């Protein structure tokens, strides 16, 4: 499998699944900067906690709640 096949969007992960952040897409630079400032940077381990009514995930020891559009911008690699 090539690396690109293993990358997924955080939005599409099921609760309980962990991954490593590859990048945050930059179609909205402010959003990307804010996520990075909150610790969502390449290499960080994230775990999805729930998807409905909003996406909640764990990054380090920070619980972050985001709307779907934001979760879609986070590209992760499943180990």
């Amino acid at each position, binding site marked *: 499998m090539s690396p690109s096949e293993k990358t997924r969007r955080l939005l599409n992960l099921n609760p309980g699944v962990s991954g490593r952040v590859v990048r945050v897409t930059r179609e909205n630079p402010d959003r990307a900067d804010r996520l990075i400032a909150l610790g969502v940077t390449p290499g960080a381990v994230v775990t999805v906690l729930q998807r409905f009514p909003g996406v909640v995930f764990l990054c380090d020891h920070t619980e972050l709640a985001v*709307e779907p559009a934001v979760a879609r911008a986070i590209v992760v690699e499943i180990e």
Partner: protein
Amino acid sequence: MSCAQAAVRNPAADPLLTLRARPRRIALLGNANVGKSVLFGRLTGQYAVVSNYPGTTVSVTKGRAMMGGEVCELIDTPGVTALEGALTEDELVARRILDRGEADVVIQVSDARNLRRALMLTSQLASCGRPMVLALNMVDEARAHGVVIDAAALSTRLGIPVIETVATEGRGVGELREAIARAAVPSCGEAHRGNHARLAHDLAIQYRRHRPHSAARAQERIGRWVREPLTGLPILALVLYGMYLAVGVFGAQTLVGLLEAGLFEAVVNPGAAALVNRAVPWALAREFLVGEYGLVSMGLTYAIAIVLPVVATFFFVFGFLEDSGYIPRLAIFSDRIFRTMGLNGKAVLPMVLGLGCDTMATMTTRILGTPKERLIAVLLLALGIPCSAQLATILGILGGVSFAALVTLFGVVLLQMFLVGFLAARAIPGERSEFIMELPPLRWPQLGNVVRKTLLRVRWYLGEAVPLFLFGTALLFVLDRVGLLARLTSAVEPLVVGLLGLPAHAAAVFIMGFLRRDYGAAGLFQMSKAGELDGVQAVVALTVMTLFVPCVANFLMMVKEQGLKAALRILGVVTVIAIGTGTVLNAVLRGLRVAF
């Protein structure tokens, strides 16, 4: 980006006694919700409001503290996520303190569990060239989560003191005071030039270890229950019911009963009347103090006997919820609804705070991302969110009418807020920001902090509201004496009687309601107790009062936050909506022959 560089002497080389033209200024800076205000309190012995969610500190607080053997000026700043790039208002405040040289030394306060984020900020601070100390706060919670940091090695690597603290217990605070003398500009090395995230990541991997842990399992489980809709919504219902029991039943009925009937009607008012009648020879002055619109018989009775007990119980319950970390989790449920209103889930914070005091809440709309969001939030707070004082009188009156009456009132108000928000989102130009929110850890609140916060807020209420109550009473007295009250009353009578179907006497109450709507509501409380209002009238009158602009103080805060023009517009819109809604509601309820 580079800061204005200040020539920095090596403080360690200073002699024991330092003479300065002014005290050294030390800024506490760090991510949101890492305990800056608790640490500020520990260092200065002065209390700053502390809550378990970001955005509590909206302005800069200053105090004095003994640091490194001398008296320094300590500056508490709002939490920041970054100091570079697109900055929020809070971040600009912090940035300005650094850029203008308003701080000689920086103490970066960090949450030890989130070392990576903390170091990202350290890296940005390094490029500002200020000498600093890094406080790794909440190391106890970090250990409970299995996070161990090699503080000594990190200190050597960065060339700055790194002190482990538990601010809530005062641990490490002494070391922190001494470490100020060794503050230095962090040396971040050249390898990562400008890439703060990469540097932080590499350092975190190098100096942080994870151990297996079990201590935080219970916390995780409760977190899941609160967050997931299947368990979270029933929990929300329970929390609301608990609040109703505490504020609506214990505060608004038991305590108000004790104070109003037991103290004021039985002791204070007759006592004051007897005293005044004996000591004051002028009839006019007697009337002014203990007459129908008397300062004691009306002003003080409303403020102390009716409103204070409810405000106090509300602030206590609210402080408890605040410190538990529960309130921000409501944002997960409300995000979708708020998005259709041009806001995002984060708006739940000012809205819930508004249930305590709309004026305070209007100030915290600053935590919202864009000017459009702030304007909509200010509008909705003014329109629909009843503050605790008013909630009190609503519960006091409608609790005695019926549950259906209560549901009608809140249903109408919520629907109205939603409609107005929906329209405002489309009418007001600009963008909303995306929902990205950090959830604070769930904790069992410290009773001491909750009590202290409650007392602080009650004192604030007494200072803020009681003078207005007295002023309002005096104003009514004067209006009544010169015959203007009668004229005003008859001028708005067609409105009050014709459109809203209320007794003419209610007009005076609405005039009071303009000063503070809880004051007006307290007037309604008296009317309903005297049997002057039937069920429908009570619901209509309270709905109109709830939809009014909360009080003069809130209006002034609106002017401060949004400017005079926007504030006047909001006032106009809200008044029209309030009266319009009352008119329609009255017609519908009468048409359907509803009797509560």
